[in-house]
């Protein structure tokens, strides 16, 4: 959230005191993410959807799949776009109006994580080359805020994409026409998992909650794929990391990511 308050300053000293004893304000271990619960197909009118709670942060992602014109220089590829929005009901400080830089960064980082992992194979989303392709739009909204929107949004998008059903279109009279009853699973490959770590003082904590988010010095979001590769990364905040810290964050993201990937798989299976 944008503005730091006096309460945040007081909380920070308490958070630091606890961290010095190896504890966190909500009792978690330093490398422990919050409880993740995923409800897939929460929005039946969407082609795929998920409602995700990461601790008290709650996000909903709906995937819409529809015919679209290809980008001029990419006629042999479909379209994948991921957006994120912070709804005014999610926190008292959120105002309506055009998105601020924090929200733009959020949307772009979540998009980059899913895109760079090549989870959605856009080359399979072509109806007719250079003419008509399938567009996959994963729109995420934040409905309740308690820190770490990056991961909560990313998990919602991933879970929604994993359970998306793609209608089929064929060209008729130069127009993409829906083929009834020919739905298939959206072609996905790897499962990207983003893990955000905050540096507070000299400590690195996984999945910072709202209080930790307001107290952190800097953060890094690292997305890994199913093969344990690192596919996207974004540093933020007003301080920096040492090389050793970044290497450690890389390792943490692979380890934590593997656990979360299992949760995502289980949720998708139950659909």
């Amino acid at each position: 959230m944008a503005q730091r308050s006096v309460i945040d300053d007081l909380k920070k000293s308490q958070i630091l005191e606890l961290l010095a004893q190896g504890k966190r304000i909500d009792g978690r271990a330093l490398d422990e993410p919050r409880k993740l619960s995923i409800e897939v197909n929460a929005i039946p009118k969407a082609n795929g959807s998920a409602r995700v709670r990461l601790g008290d942060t709650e996000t909903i992602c709906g995937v819409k799949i529809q015919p679209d014109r290809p980008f001029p220089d990419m006629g042999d590829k479909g379209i994948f776009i991921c957006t994120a929005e912070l709804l005014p009901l999610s926190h008292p400080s959120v105002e309506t109006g055009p998105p601020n830089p924090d929200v733009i960064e959020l949307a772009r980082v979540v998009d980059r994580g899913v895109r760079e992992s090549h989870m959605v194979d856009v080359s399979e989303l072509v109806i007719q080359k250079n003419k008509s392709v399938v567009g996959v739009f994963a729109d995420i909204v934040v409905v309740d805020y308690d820190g770490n929107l990056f991961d909560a949004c990313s998990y919602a998008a991933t879970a929604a994409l994993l359970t998306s059903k793609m209608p089929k279109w064929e060209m008729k009279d130069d127009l993409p026409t829906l083929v009834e009853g020919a739905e298939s699973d959206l072609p996905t490959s790897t499962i990207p998992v983003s893990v955000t770590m905050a540096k507070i003082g000299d400590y690195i904590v996984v999945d910072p909650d709202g209080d930790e988010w307001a107290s952190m010095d800097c953060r890094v979001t690292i997305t890994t794929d199913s093969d344990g590769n690192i596919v996207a990364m974004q540093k933020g905040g007003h301080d920096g990391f040492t090389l050793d810290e970044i290497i450690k964050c890389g390792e943490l993201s692979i380890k934590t990511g593997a656990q979360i990937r299992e949760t995502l798989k289980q949720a998708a299976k139950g659909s």
Partner: protein
Amino acid sequence: MGGRDSTMVLLDENGIRCDGRKIDEPRKIMIKAGGLKNADGSAYIEFGDNKILVGVYGPRDVHPKHMSNTDTGILRVRYHMEPFSVSERKNPAPSRREIEISKVIKEALLPAVILDKFPRTAVDVFIEILQADGGTRCAALAAASVALADAGIPMRDMVASCAAGKVADTIILDVNNEEDQAGQADMPIGYMPNLDKITLLQLDGVLNPEEFKKCVETGIAGCKIVYELQKKALQEKYFQNGGDQ
């Protein structure tokens, strides 16, 4: 970012890249401190074919007033591309990409600047991309650090910046436009050499854990090269003619 094809030869059998560089060789870099008359501090950088001008104003009054902070001065950064800076004309209105880059550059500079001595003021950094050729955010960050130093803003260290990446399964230093478009990974890094702190870090592309480590190390090595050129730029202005333009 975006379309990636592998038709171009990015790395030949002798380890020479598409623009003739070796894998650990940065592009030609020229940094000049000062140059703008009105700005409190300024810098110009040519980083390969990137041409970037940075002007710094402040510490000065904050408008709008509600943005001011009673405890410290604030830093504001605007990264802006000219419509003529890229092959196809760019809409002059700030894009989402520019807003994000403005933010990451601001957060890369914040660990370096000491603004608590200037409460209720703002330091404004205006970055103008006159010509873009891949790696503009790194070049802009390096130039912005020099411009801040030129403006006399107290700093803990200068932020040096360079990207590393992966093309043809090889980790390379300083990704150019072609390598960014067709390569496998691009990792811009901002780094304060004296404090050993990474202040800007992004990645898109796929790296396994060993490549990841090598990529960060390669980028930091590049930052150290840029750092020397940043210091040289300031020395050229302030030691050869006493700082008078």
